[in-house]
């Protein structure tokens, strides 16, 4: 599916650099969020055009957030390529992000479902609040996991909630019980996805070879980082934030790197245990959803998501 174009009017060719910028941006993504939309939309038998609209909506919002995020974080790379603000200008990156969000509203309002427009606007608003708050804790190495969860609830989980609920809304299904269920599930998925992504930073289940300690080097203590330093004193935290390699991290626990690594691995197990509880809560909501929807196909697809998102396993496993 081409996520970039929904309507021929989306990105006028006469605007300089606009299409080049979007070509770069849309070409490297995995489109995970749009796949999530399809997982819910397929069993509902939504028309293909509606599915396209929803998939493109979520990709537009997500990519707009990336454009703004990279500028806020001053990240020079995005998906292995030069970030838009760096390649073009910060001004173009801001305008391009705004333009994507504006197109979302244009396309969705043409669809004519006011509840969906309202829900999407709320999602964008949550996302921006999350980004704003995240920027306010950069350089805060004493921030707690619970405090970061609040940020991720807004920033990451809002899009997951949208992916699960928007297809039902597009079908004019506003059953509040169903939406409550999906809302909770979306929140948990978002939190698990974020925590798993944060683990990659510390080389845990990092099969995709993500650069290590990127968040820490940018002055941001992510969820796993805050879990690791929870019981540290000030001097250990100082040592932790100066780490440039995993060995440095292990040395925060013990001068002997091997022993330090063992303690670190125990911490990973404890973190996994916390998240296993979240996964159990997700399964509980999934069972409740099953009783309400009776859609084995949907249940099966949603059932494997925690494996894919948190444990980073392939769906067939």
């Amino acid at each position, binding site marked *: 599916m081409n996520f970039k174009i929904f309507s021929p009017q989306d990105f006028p060719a006469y605007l300089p650099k606009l299409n080049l910028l979007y070509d770069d941006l849309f070409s490297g993504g995995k489109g995970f969020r749009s796949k999530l939309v399809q997982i819910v939309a397929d069993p509902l038998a939504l028309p293909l055009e509606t599915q396209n609209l929803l998939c493109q909506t979520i990709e537009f919002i997500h990519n707009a957030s990336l454009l703004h995020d990279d500028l806020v974080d001053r990240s020079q790379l995005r998906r292995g390529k030069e970030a838009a603000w760096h390649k073009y200008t910060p001004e173009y990156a801001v305008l391009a992000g705004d333009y994507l969000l504006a197109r979302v509203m244009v396309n969705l309002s043409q669809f004519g479902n006011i509840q969906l427009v309202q829900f999407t606007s709320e999602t964008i608003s949550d996302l921006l609040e999350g980004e704003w*708050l995240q920027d*306010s*804790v950069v350089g805060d190495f004493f921030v707690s996991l619970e405090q970061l969860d609040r940020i991720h609830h807004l920033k990451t989980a809002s899009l997951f909630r949208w992916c699960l609920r928007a297809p039902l809304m597009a079908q004019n299904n506003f059953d509040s019980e169903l939406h*409550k269920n999906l809302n909770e599930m979306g929140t948990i998925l978002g939190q698990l996805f974020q925590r798993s992504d944060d683990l990659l930073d510390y080389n845990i289940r990092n099969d995709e070879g993500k650069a290590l300690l990127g968040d820490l080097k940018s002055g941001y203590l992510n969820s796993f980082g805050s879990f690791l330093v929870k019981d540290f004193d000030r001097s250990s935290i100082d040592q932790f934030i100066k780490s440039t390699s995993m060995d440095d991290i292990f040395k925060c626990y013990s001068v002997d790197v091997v022993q330090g690594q063992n303690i670190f691995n125990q911490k990973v197990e404890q973190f996994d245990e916390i998240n296993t509880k979240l996964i159990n*809560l997700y399964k*509980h*909501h999934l069972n409740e959803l099953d009783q309400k929807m009776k859609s084995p196909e949907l249940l099966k697809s949603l059932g494997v998501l925690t494996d894919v998102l948190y444990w980073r396993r392939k769906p067939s496993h």
Partner: protein
Amino acid sequence: MSSFITLKKSDPEFKKHLYGSFSGDNIAIPVATLNLGSVEETITFEIKKKSDIKKPIFLILFFNMIKIKKYLLILVPLFYVLAKNYVDGSMYDIWSLFLAACGSLFLFAGINIRNDVIDHITGYDRVNTSEELKPIQEGWLTAADAVFMSWAFIIIATLFAIPVMIKQPETAQVVGVIIASVLIGKIFVRKSYKNQHFGELLLFILSGAGLVSGYQVALGAGIDTEVLAFGILWGWSVLFLLHLNNFRNLLTSSQAGIKNTVTRLGFDRAKKLLNYWWIVFLLFWFAYHHFYGSVFWSALSNLILIFWSIPTLIKISQIQSPVGSDLIDAKLAGYRNFLLMNGILILEFGWYVGTKNSWTL
């Protein structure tokens, strides 16, 4: 192994799970809440076996329940009334004051436990989590048990109050005003626990002028301007603690639609409120000591408090985020200011008592 259950407010089992009366062997701990405070409220409970819950020793549980750390709020005013009247030679009815003090200790315990129950039932403690351990949230005891405990303490407090009101009828008037205020507050809470403006006013009156006036009349010494001035000073400082706590919960309270002075002002202006509030407190302190304190204690305490307050004021003004760790740091710094003020008060009034008795070091 625990399990989960999701219940709607309209479900007859909903209240039973919240109060913990649904089972003799299990306990229900709320883990997720949707549409809090509305008829659509839905809570997901984690069901755990009571035998699987690790409880602390009884004393820790008990101190957590009655909020032992908050007892300074009623004990320091009691010490003030005792010392002031001892120095003034107006200790007319020490037994009534003793009974009133015992009553206030039990009443305070009952109110603190009741507050925990209300927070649990309304969901306030799920919106605004805190660093303190909450026994009901931890599953150490059920809300139904806590209700029983709170009533027991309130009844004991009433038993202490009756002889005081008989011996010192003026006390009945103070108690009457307090009960009327609490009842009005209760109506407001029923209407919506989310609107806390009246609660702030109530706390200012009850914890300050109301409390010291109660002690004063129980002693048979009557209310005077010095006691009222101290009540205002004390109530103002207690409200500072409340604003600090509300500031720590600014984000979650705002998201839940809770209205108080801090959420009304927002992040940037609330920081100014906290600083101005403490500066006004220092002015009250100065004025109180100017009229009623000795020159020595006035100068010394003002210097110490001003010197100590400057880093706190800077810390508060430098808070960057409504979710960051500096929120907790600033709250602790504010609490330390309050504790220092308590320490100075105790030393100062101990000094006055010592001077009267010609104690020497």
